[in-house]
């Protein structure tokens, strides 16, 4: 009973809010350009579905590509750092600078570097930059999280530096890496959308461009439709990664 209630609760709240919104729009005669009713947004989603789906896929593929790049670079860097403690000292402050710099602030610069003809490269790079930090930070923390007595076992048998990283520190870091990738994936989507805004109109027609375009034409229902698709995409990706993380952790712990 309570299990069922737990499952239904978020949907029930959503339904109540949507109903209130619908009723308020109709009763108060709110103009559609200001706030369209949910039913109107739903019609816009259905009408625009092919365009929205293509745009969503464009944004999602950029985010996933960025996640992949960030994952490879962050983990490789973390391993290199794990092999050379002095490098860690050197790299950490730089990594923090990358973390605290807002992506919109560097977007214009990266757009120049990528070249006027290749805004998609700039967007990919910016999204990767945003997704990099949580993965890198998780990897660095994780590489230090090995059981100290297990480290002593490796000392005892004269393990090489590489053996220690590959057979102890990296496997010990797996829970931290999983968490880092989950956070990084969410940030990659945000990064992709923000970077698309930064790139402005035309070049890359993802979800952000849909929102911008609809906004310029005062088609508020289309704006909210694109936002809804973006939200749904984020929720789906998060749920997927959460499930992946859970099963991977179950494997790692052995139960």
């Amino acid at each position, binding site marked *: 009973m309570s299990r069922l209630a737990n499952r239904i609760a978020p949907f029930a709240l959503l339904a109540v809010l949507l109903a209130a919104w619908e009723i308020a729009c109709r009763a108060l005669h709110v103009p559609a350009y200001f706030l369209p009713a949910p039913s109107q947004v739903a019609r816009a989603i259905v009408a625009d579905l092919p365009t929205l789906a293509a745009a969503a896929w464009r944004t999602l593929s950029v985010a996933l590509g960025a996640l992949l790049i960030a994952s490879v670079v962050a983990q490789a860097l973390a391993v290199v750092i794990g092999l050379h403690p002095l490098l860690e000292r050197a790299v950490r402050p730089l990594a923090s600078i990358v973390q605290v710099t807002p992506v919109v602030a560097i977007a214009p610069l990266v757009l120049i570097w990528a070249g006027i003809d290749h805004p998609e490269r700039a967007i990919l790079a910016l999204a990767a930059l945003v997704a990099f930090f949580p993965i890198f930070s998780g990897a660095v923390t994780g590489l230090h999280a090995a059981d100290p007595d297990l480290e002593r076992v490796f000392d*005892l048998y004269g393990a090489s530096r590489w053996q220690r990283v590959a057979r102890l520190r990296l496997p*010990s870091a797996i829970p931290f890496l999983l968490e880092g990738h989950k956070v990084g994936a969410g940030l990659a989507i945000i990064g992709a959308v923000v970077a698309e805004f930064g790139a402005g109109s035309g070049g890359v027609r993802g979800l952000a461009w849909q929102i911008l375009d609809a906004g310029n034409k005062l088609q508020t229902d289309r704006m909210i439709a694109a936002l809804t698709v973006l939200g749904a995409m984020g929720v789906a990706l998060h749920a997927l990664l959460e499930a992946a993380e859970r099963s991977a952790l179950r*494997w790692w712990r052995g*139960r």
Partner: protein
Amino acid sequence: MSVAALHDVEVDYGQRGRALGPFSLSVAPGEIVALVGPSGCGKSTALRLLAGLERPTRGEVVRAPGRGETAVVFQAPTLAPWLSACANVALPLELAGTPKQTAAARATEALGRVGLAKADAARPAQLSGGMAMRVSLARALVTEPKLLLLDEPFAALDEITRRALADDVLALWAASGPGIVFVTHNVEEAVYMASRVVVMTPGPGRMAAEIAVGGETPRPLGFRTTPQFRATAEAVSERLFAACAA
């Protein structure tokens, strides 16, 4: 001739001050020595010195065993959760460059020696505390060490399991005969396991007394109820109390 020896070693830990010493101890081949002392007396530090995992601030550590010939069993099983029991036991061999298949075969054999022949594929999380400790013991024995160091290995286990494990360790010792240094704060366990009990003072630990334990090893059934065992345990307790009171 000793397997490992500490000569007047002292260990200082910066701000925390002195942890151990001056302390001397020599372990003969095939001898079982128990170190007994209150918490914080530096027992585990002494063990890490004997293992070569730490260096003394002053004094000298002499170790005969080469790479891979010293094994340590810690208070917790200290197994890698992502590896099967067999892979955990094979780890020391693989680190030393033994081919994977040979290492796995020897690991399976070592698991058999500690009575876990069937737990080969199990993960540590699927084992009970006592079984996990046995896997840890198998990992220590798989390299046929000359020196086996046990750092309160049974402290987290229930009485029945710890007694069974104590007998197992003695049986394994009888089979391969490594020198054993055994750290504990349980007097009866020390007397039961060791042929020599070293009582340490509160930190920084020094030697307060050294008591020889008679009787045959492995211990015969009912050894704990013999007058000899009771008298020795009483003597060790007295020295320990005296050392703590001083």
